């Protein structure tokens, strides 16, 4: 495996060996380590000194289920701190087949006249003129590239939002069918890619050899054990494949954690119309191109993704997931899956994070710019955003800036980033993760909701969050989907798979050390970027407004942390 470094100032491309100190670093561990080592914390996120790092995991390209997450990292234009956002799709797999552990985009083009496509195949790497794809949505970009290079390529791309340096722009990856909708959505990393003038990275693995383990027999035995655990654990074997992540809504709505009408309460009257059961029923009744279970990456046996069809059975969007359903649904008082799916498609195509979009619309609704539940207006505004209206630009700048512009105090965001779909008053451990994770408000940085604990009480939540943050970092650092965590609790099994695949010494202790070092590195970077303990707070309203669903306020303060 190698590192691929693209210097946009010189327009040159270098393949580098992985430094020995990075050999057990992959996924988030590698993106954060490279950024920490090479990017000054004080740099402008969209300037020449920031770098975009794209890394797969140590087990990418192997038959290990759910080990094909792609991590993308940079200094974030949204949080002003370090950011890693990971997604599914086929790109981590194809990078592995092409012998690439990470791609580093650095420098700044000498003029702002050109846009590029980075094309990688077994013969080599080249920058190609991308002018013909400028201002096209992600779906058109993918279609054009697939027409040119074949249906089986992997694509990492930005939409117009990234080109326009919108600080809530995401980066998308193609799924197994070539659908460009597996998002590394958070933190505005699409704007960083746009600032490097790269519209898309094409990964053409035609003619490459399969990725093979160093110790084949041992690897196969451990793989069998790993697969059996996933197939025998209720969550990964039954719940996720049927309801996907949308199954979460039953829990959050019951415990008062489902963001509703801009986080004004935690239970939604219309939840039964948009929850996991409703999603499953709608997809199965409509049939056609829809399916309630779908693998977002090659070889995934959990299959928690889906393909949501319109009434005539044609694919409307894939996937439709819990965070999107809650932020575009209950948080905006919308109980119509078709409307949510349409908004999801628009966001995917334009290249913007659905969580941030839902938070921002909630803020606008709170101000009365549009009414809660006004489905026509929200679609109109989303389409305006695509056309580049001033209101659209404000929405693209995220919930905090929209709040400043329209004078809204109740803005659910931490370190500039809109909050995912769990009310922190009702899931206090995750509330702690929102406020002191290096990633800003991010549910993937240390989610505690599945634990059998009293989520509405403050007892031990700081320690519980700390453990959850460490666990999430460990999985992110390996490029393994966090869903696997419900089934594979023995980290020595993961370590064994890594050892037998790579030939490197690995153990549970080593994996924990990598995760600890990664978190420490990220916090250190944030300090150098000017982020202090004073930024480790939730918005004020969570401390003083009781959640009407359960009477809870967020009562974990600076001195408790």
């Amino acid at each position, binding site marked *: 495996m190698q590192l691929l470094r693209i210097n946009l100032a010189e327009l040159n491309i270098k393949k580098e060996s992985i430094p020995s100190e990075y050999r057990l670093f992959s996924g988030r561990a590698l993106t954060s380590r490279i950024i920490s080592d090479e990017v000054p914390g004080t740099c402008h996120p969209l300037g020449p000194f920031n770098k975009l790092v794209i890394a797969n995991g140590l087990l990418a390209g192997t038959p290990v289920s759910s080990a094909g997450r792609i991590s993308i990292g940079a200094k974030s234009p949204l949080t002003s701190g370090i950011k890693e956002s990971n997604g599914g799709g086929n790109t981590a797999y194809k990078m592995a087949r092409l012998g690439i552990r990470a791609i580093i985009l650095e420098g700044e083009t000498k003029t702002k006249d050109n846009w590029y496509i980075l094309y990688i195949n077994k013969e080599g790497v080249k920058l190609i003129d991308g002018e013909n794809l400028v201002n096209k949505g992600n779906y058109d970009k993918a279609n054009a590239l697939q027409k040119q290079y074949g249906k089986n390529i992997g694509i990492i791309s930005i939409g117009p939002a990234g080109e326009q340096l919108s600080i809530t722009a995401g980066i998308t990856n193609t799924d197994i069918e070539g659908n460009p909708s597996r998002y590394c959505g958070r933190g505005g990393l699409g704007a960083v890619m746009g600032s490097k003038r790269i519209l898309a990275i094409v990964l053409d693995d035609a003619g490459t050899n399969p990725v093979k383990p160093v110790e084949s027999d041992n690897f196969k035995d451990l793989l069998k054990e790993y697969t059996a655990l996933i197939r025998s654990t209720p*969550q990964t074997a039954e719940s996720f494949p049927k309801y996907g992540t949308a199954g979460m809504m039953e829990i959050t709505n019951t415990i*008062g954690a489902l963001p509703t009408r801009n986080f004004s309460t935690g239970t939604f009257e219309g939840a039964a119309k948009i929850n996991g059961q409703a999603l499953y029923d709608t997809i199965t009744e409509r049939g056609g191109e829809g399916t309630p279970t779908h693998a977002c990456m090659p070889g995934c046996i959990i299959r928690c993704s889906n393909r949501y069809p319109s009434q005539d059975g044609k694919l409307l969007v894939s996937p439709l997931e819990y965070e999107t359903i809650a932020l575009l649904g209950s948080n905006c008082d919308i109980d119509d899956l078709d409307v949510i799916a349409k908004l999801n498609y628009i966001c995917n195509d334009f290249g913007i994070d659905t969580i941030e979009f839902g938070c921002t619309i909630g803020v606008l609704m709170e101000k009365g710019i549009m009414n809660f539940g006004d489905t026509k207006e929200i679609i109109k505004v989303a389409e305006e955003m695509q056309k580049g209206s001033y209101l659209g630009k404000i929405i693209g700048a995220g919930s905090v800036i929209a709040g400043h512009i329209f004078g809204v105090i109740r803005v659910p965001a931490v370190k500039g980033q809109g909050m995912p*779909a769990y009310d922190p008053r009702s899931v206090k451990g995750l509330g702690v993760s929102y406020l002191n994770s290096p990633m800003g408000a991010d549910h993937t940085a240390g989610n505690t*909701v599945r634990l059998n604990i009293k989520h509405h009480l403050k007892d031990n939540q700081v320690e519980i969050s700390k453990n959850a943050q460490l666990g999430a970092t460990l999985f992110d650092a390996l490029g393994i989907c966090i869903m696997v965590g*419900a089934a594979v609790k023995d980290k020595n099994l993961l370590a064994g798979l890594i050892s037998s695949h790579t030939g490197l010494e690995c153990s549970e202790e080593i994996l924990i050390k990598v995760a600890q070092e990664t978190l420490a590195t990220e916090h250190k970077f944030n300090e150098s970027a000017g982020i202090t303990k004073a930024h480790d707070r939730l918005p004020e309203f969570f401390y003083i407004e009781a959640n009407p669903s359960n009477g809870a306020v967020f009562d974990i303060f600076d001195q408790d942390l």
Partner: protein
Amino acid sequence: MISIQLQVKVPWGKLEVDEIRSYADGTTVEKVLADLGIEVRDEGNYLVAVNGKIEYKDYIFKDGDRMSILPALIGG
């Protein structure tokens, strides 16, 4: 006797209940779980909420309580 509203929706084991049942005074979460055939060793796989708040197996029900049994999941 007390009445407890049971709302159970756990995909595995095809466990779906939405009804009011009568129990003796002093009934705990553990007793109701046993009544539903849920083994305590499965504790990490589900959450029990009473009136919208997570409670443990030693919780003693009051008349009119609403008990929800939910799969332990995370979203994405």
